[in-house]
C-alpha cells in the first residue's frame, strides 16, 4: 500500500529538515510514500481567523486531490496542517449543505474518504511495531516530549491521545532508547503564528516551555510540529532574553530523534539546519 504525503508549506521551506527526516525514516522501513500532486497551502491560522469558508475550501481541495490520486490514507506531519485538514473533514461530514457548497467553491468533488494520520499515528502504525532490533544507537538522553496544541486539541474532533498529559510521543521515545521526563508544559502553546507579529509574546510563551524543560533536567526537547520547532529553535535568542540565561537544549523533531536511534546520518536527518546546535 502507498501512503499519501501532505508536506505543507513549512516542510518545503523553513522546516525542510522535518520532511527530510520523515522521508529518511520511512525509507529505512521501506514505506512507500507518495506526495499529493499540486497540493496547496492549508490556509493555516490566517485563513480560519479571517475567512471561515476559505479555511474549509483550501483543506478540502487537498483532500479532494488525494482522493483523485487514489490515496486512501495520508500522513500530515505538520500538526497545524493536520488540525486544519482534520477539522475540515469533521465539519464537512457533519453538514451536507456546507459540503456541497465547498465542493462547488472548489469545482472539485469531495467525498471525505481519506484517512488522515498525524506523524505519531503514522509512526505507531507502520514503524513502532517493527522498531525492536532496529535501534542500533539508542537516543540515550533525558527528553521533554512537547506536543503543543494542535496535535492533541480539540480532542472531540482529533480523538488522538489525551489532551492533558499525552503519552504517545513519550512511549515512542522510550522505545528509541530515551528517558522521557515528567514536565508541566507538554501541551502549552508556544505562541505559534504570532512569531512575526508579536515576537515578544512568543519569546515569553516559548521561554516558559524551554525554561521548564531545563529546570527538570531535559537534555533535548522533542517536537512534532514545525511551528513549535521554529519558535523553540529559531526564537532561542528571544527565549534566552526572557529567561535571562543561555539555554542551549536542542530541539529535535520526533523523526530526527528516531532516525538517529536507528543509525541514520545526522545530515540526512537535516540536523545541520537547526539554530540551536544538536550535539547528540
Amino acid at each position: 500500500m502507498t501512503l499519501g504525503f501532505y508536506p505543507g508549506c513549512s516542510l518545503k521551506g523553513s522546516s525542510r529538515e522535518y520532511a527530510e527526516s520523515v522521508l529518511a525514516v520511512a525509507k529505512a522501513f521501506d514505506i512507500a510514500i507518495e506526495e499529493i500532486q499540486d497540493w496547496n497551502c492549508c490556509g493555516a491560522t490566517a485563513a480560519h481567523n479571517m475567512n471561515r469558508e476559505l479555511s474549509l475550501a483550501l483543506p478540502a481541495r487537498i483532500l479532494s486531490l488525494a482522493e483523485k490520486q487514489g490515496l486512501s490514507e495520508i500522513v500530515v506531519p505538520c500538526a497545524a496542517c493536520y488540525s486544519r485538514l482534520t477539522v475540515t473533514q469533521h465539519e464537512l461530514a457533519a453538514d451536507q449543505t456546507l459540503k456541497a457548497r465547498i465542493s462547488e467553491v472548489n469545482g472539485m468533488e469531495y467525498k471525505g474518504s481519506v484517512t488522515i494520520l498525524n506523524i505519531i499515528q503514522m509512526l505507531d502504525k507502520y514503524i513502532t511495531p517493527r522498531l525492536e532490533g532496529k535501534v542500533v544507537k539508542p537516543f540515550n538522553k533525558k527528553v521533554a516530549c512537547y506536543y503543543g496544541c494542535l496535535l492533541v486539541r480539540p480532542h472531540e474532533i482529533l480523538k488522538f491521545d489525551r489532551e492533558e498529559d499525552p503519552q504517545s510521543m513519550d512511549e515512542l521515545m522510550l522505545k528509541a532508547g530515551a528517558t522521557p521526563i515528567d514536565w508541566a508544559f507538554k501541551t502549552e502553546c508556544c505562541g505559534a503564528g504570532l512569531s512575526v507579529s508579536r515576537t515578544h509574546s512568543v519569546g515569553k510563551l516559548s521561554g516558559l516551555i524551554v525554561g521548564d524543560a531545563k529546570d527538570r533536567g531535559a537534555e533535548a526537547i522533542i517536537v512534532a510540529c514545525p511551528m513549535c520547532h521554529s519558535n523553540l529553535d529559531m526564537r532561542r535568542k528571544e527565549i534566552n532574553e526572557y529567561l535571562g540565561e543561555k539555554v542551549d537544549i536542542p530541539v529535535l523533531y520526533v523523526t530526527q530523534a528516531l532516525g538517529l536511534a536507528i543509525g541514520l546520518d545526522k545530515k540526512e536527518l537535516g540536523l545541520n539546519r537547526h539554530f540551536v546546535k544538536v550535539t547528540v
Partner: protein
Amino acid sequence: MSSDNHHSALTELGTELLEQSDVKVTRCYQCGKCTAGCPLALEMDYPPSMVMRMLQTGNPALEEKVLRSFTIWVCLTCEMCFARCPMSIDIPKMMDQLRQKALLEKKVNRKAKEIIAFHKSFLDSIRYTGRLYEIGLFVDYKARTLKILDDMALAPAMLKRGKLNIFPEMIKDRSGIASIFRKTSKKHKD
C-alpha cells in the same frame, strides 16, 4: 438544552454565534477555567471568561466592546479554553466568528494592526502561488507594517541553513486557487 430555556432570548450577535459557531453564550457559568488556562489572558483587554460574560448580558454596548477588543485578535486559537471548559463551549470557534464580524463591520482594534497585516500577507502569498512563499511573506509584511528592521538577522541565518526558498513554489492550478479566493470573498455574492 431544555435547561437553558429559562435564559433570556439571545441577541442578534448571540444568535449569530449559535448558528455560525455552535456557541450558546448563556451556557457559560463563569467558572473561569478558560481564563486560567489561556496563555495570553494577561495580554488581552478582556480575558475569555469576561468576554463570555459581556456577551451574556446582551448589552449592545458590551457586545460592541467585544467586537472592538484586542482579545479576539491576540487569541492564538490554541484550544486550551475549549479543552478545559466544563460546558464544552467552543470559544476558539466563537473567536473566529467574532474576528470575521469585526473585519466585516470594520471594527478592528488598532493594536491588532500587525497581527492582521501578517494574516493578509500570508493569504496573499497563497492567493498568487498556491503555497506560502516565506520570503514574499516577510517582504509583504514589512511593506504593510513598515517594521523594516525587525528580524533582519533572521533571514540570512535561515538562508545559510537552507531554510528559505529564494523563489516561490508555484502550483500548476493557480487559476483554481484564485477562483477559490474569489468565490469565498466576503464581497463576492453568488
